[in-house]
């Protein structure tokens, strides 16, 4: 059966530990390329950060489109054109005010298209609109954000997961920034917003995988048959379909944004923003399964308890993941952990328990007395499929 079919049927299909090493190498390669691009080429900061120059001209009946066409050959096609009250046009672009050759050429082009003297085109240097204060406040906020999130994950989950989540987020940001450096895309405030979106997305995705691992960890503790790596691999398999679907539903709107932006003129900003998001979302999904998850496995395997478990299992890796899953489900059945901790109200808990009792009753009239139901089954929950090779 195909991989997708297996996934659809909830059958563990990917032997993650096998691919982790290879993916790790790919990640490392990407990171090196990103870092090299960042250090050699640097980021191409937009006018909002660096400032630039501004021309003002009485355009008469000239449209902004005509002005753009006139600036295109000079390499100023992405200039920002604004109509000020009356016929006045303001053109803002990234350029050094001291580069007189370049700026004069633009002034001449503007004078030509507007039909006025070059001396009627006024020219001035503009400072950044995205000031140092915004940048530094954003940086400060990011540091606080990372610290608080780290503490949050530590308390909610484990320190190993905290470390892994931060590495994964760092991975995604570096790769996205690297793409900007490599292709010298303009970094605008919209780009910064995109980075922040990616950061949130990447964390969110990673936390969902981790939540699954933690859930399975509690279940597996009962039977001691799975090494931590197997457990992690199993968890990654369980959330894989979700990851794929989520990536799909997140990437699709961004992709259409890119395509539509490309087809329609004047949506340069839109494109760069969408591109940053596209790369970021892909990296975010990838890193939660191929960076964060293996890192948790590696870190946890160092713990004495899991090292012992691994030794006791004698390096006998359960070859068949489905076998592992069955084992996990069995152990879960044996000591059914209350599914609800924390958030869900007691009422909801009782209701869930009640309806479970009822549904079990429907199948076999088993009297159950307590809320902490254990449904001992005599058969393995899933049949082994014979046709599967």
């Amino acid at each position, binding site marked *: 059966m195909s991989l997708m079919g297996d996934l659809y*049927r*909830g059958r563990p299909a990917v032997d993650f530990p096998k691919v982790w090493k290879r993916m790790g190498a790919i990640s490392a390669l990407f990171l090196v390329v990103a870092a090299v691009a960042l250090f050699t080429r640097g980021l191409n900061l937009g006018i909002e950060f660096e400032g630039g120059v501004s021309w003002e001209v009485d355009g008469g009946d000239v449209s902004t489109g005509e002005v753009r066409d006139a600036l295109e050959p000079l390499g100023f096609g992405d200039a920002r054109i604004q109509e000020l009250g009356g016929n006045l046009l*303001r053109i803002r672009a990234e350029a050094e005010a001291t580069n007189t050759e370049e700026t004069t050429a633009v002034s001449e082009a503007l004078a030509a298209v507007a039909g006025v003297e070059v001396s009627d085109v006024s020219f001035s240097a503009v400072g950044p609109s*995205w000031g140092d204060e915004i940048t530094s406040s954003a940086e400060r906020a990011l540091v606080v954000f990372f610290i608080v999130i780290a503490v949050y994950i530590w308390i909610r989950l484990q320190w190993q997961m905290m470390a892994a989540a931060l590495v994964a987020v760092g991975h995604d940001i570096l790769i996205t920034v690297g793409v900007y450096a490599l292709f010298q895309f303009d970094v605008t405030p919209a780009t910064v917003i995109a980075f922040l979106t990616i950061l949130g997305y990447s964390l969110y995705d990673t936390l969902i995988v981790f939540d699954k691992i933690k859930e399975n960890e509690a279940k597996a503790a009962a039977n001691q048959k799975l090494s931590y790596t197997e457990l992690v691999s199993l968890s990654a398999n369980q959330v894989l379909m979700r990851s794929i679907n989520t990536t799909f539903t997140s990437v699709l709107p961004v992709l259409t944004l890119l395509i*539509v932006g490309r087809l329609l003129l004047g949506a340069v900003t839109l494109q760069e923003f969408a591109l940053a998001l596209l790369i970021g979302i892909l990296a975010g999904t990838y890193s939660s399964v191929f960076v964060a998850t293996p890192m948790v496995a590696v870190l946890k395997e160092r713990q004495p308890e899991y090292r012992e478990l691994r030794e006791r299992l004698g390096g006998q890796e359960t070859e068949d993941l489905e076998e592992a899953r069955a084992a996990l489900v069995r152990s879960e059945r044996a000591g059914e952990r209350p599914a609800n901790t924390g958030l869900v109200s007691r009422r909801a808990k009782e209701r869930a328990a009640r309806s479970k009792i009822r549904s079990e009753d429907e199948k076999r009239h088993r009297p159950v007395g307590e809320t902490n139901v254990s449904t001992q089954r005599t058969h393995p929950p899933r049949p082994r499929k014979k046709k599967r090779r």
Partner: protein
Amino acid sequence: MKGRAATPLIAIVVIVGALLAGSLIAGQEPLLGLDLQGGVEVVLEPVDNPGDEVTGEELDQALEIIRDRVDALGVAEPDITRQGDRIVIQLPGVDDQERAIELVGQTAELRFRPVLVGPLPLSGVPAVPDETLDPEPSHTEPVVCSDLILEGVDMVSDGYNGGPSLAQLETGFVTSPANDLAGRTVILDGEAGRYLLGPACVTGAALEGASAELQGVQWAVRVTARSGPDGIDRFNDAASTCFAAIGGICPAVPGDQVGALAIVLDGQVQSAPRIQAASFDRDNINITGSFSQAEARDIALVLDFGALPVEFTDPATTGLVRTVSATLGRDALDAGLLAGAIGVAIVAAYMIAYYRLLGVGAILSLIVSSAMLWVIVSFLSDTRGLALTLAGITGLIVSIGVSLDSNIVYFEHLKEDILRGRSLTSSIDRSFPAAFRTIFWANLATLIGAVILYFLTIGSVRGFALMLGIASILDLVATYFFLRPFVRILVLSKRFSGSNRAFGMPPDTEVEAVTA
């Protein structure tokens, strides 16, 4: 059981529907940002003072203060740049245009003047601008309040430095703008009435900033002074003089034990708080009164404004206020919206193809949360000047995919349970709490991030954080109050029950076969 599940579903649909209708009837709609619909531009030019060159550093400082002030107007995304010596402020939307010009464009020095007499009710007393006095350069500097006690002048009856006196206040005189000099007594109007005011003891230069805050049940203005002799020391000198109300410097309201210090901007008394202590801590000066939130905010803005280190010419008189067009324009917005519509359509098709009826639930849940988002964004646009830029709209489109994730997490949980041999009916109640827990903790992380970004940043990052936070809360609300009951009702309904295929779930016949 089914009826109980339907209650929140009906409730949320009715509430959201009512809110949406209310918002549409009230004519509230999202305000578009500068890049999409242009706005108004205010240009500030420094006053040309010979021998007093304005440095770039001062201009940068002024720019940051102006940015803070505009941010305080709401969460709109202004574009503020330095262009040579000038500061160019572009504000999106035109609704608050006049107010924006007023706040950005005011150029007068903020002064604190002791209240000698007043307020006298304005009605029935015609205002006659006092043009008889010659403005004299020597009276432009503020004085030190405690020095006035030593000089022993009777400002109430004689005026000070040629300023008007009580007699003129009673005959309806007001000080003309040209005569409104720091080192003189003046007669000025405020909301509460007309005042006879002493020479300015403190100016805006002594302040670092101010903000409106809720103290207990009352709105108050919290002021922070600069440190040093030109900051808090000067302020405290005035405070101790007025607190004791000595020597006719701050006699204030007749019969009152403590004196008042008027906050004057642009020849207008903004507020005349009574001084309740002889000295204050630099960062703990509170102005209280029965302020509404808007009043407190306005006073805070005025106090903030007075801290500008550069004096600018009045843009309203120099004609440096004009409208500007969008930099991106309608076509970019249309492109964004078209892309969004196509993207959502494809995503909807995919969800329905994959999850069948559950997919329908996911799309409906998305519609519910979008409606809530529209209401909230429109409301904030209307009241706080929140502006949607193209980046913001794109962010919202992206958030669609992310909010569908909550649904997917739930559905995949369901599927997992079914694969373990449970029936669809028994799985829905079991899966939701576990799935919601995951969604909740993941969303909480996003929310924490949003709150931190909102409170620690400024400008457009702040606007983004707000949208992010709202989106993640709405995601939880829609999932819990809409999706959960919706799926329950669907699964329990006779028509679909037992048909796993209709829910895009693997058929459980395989399992049943073995169980039998």
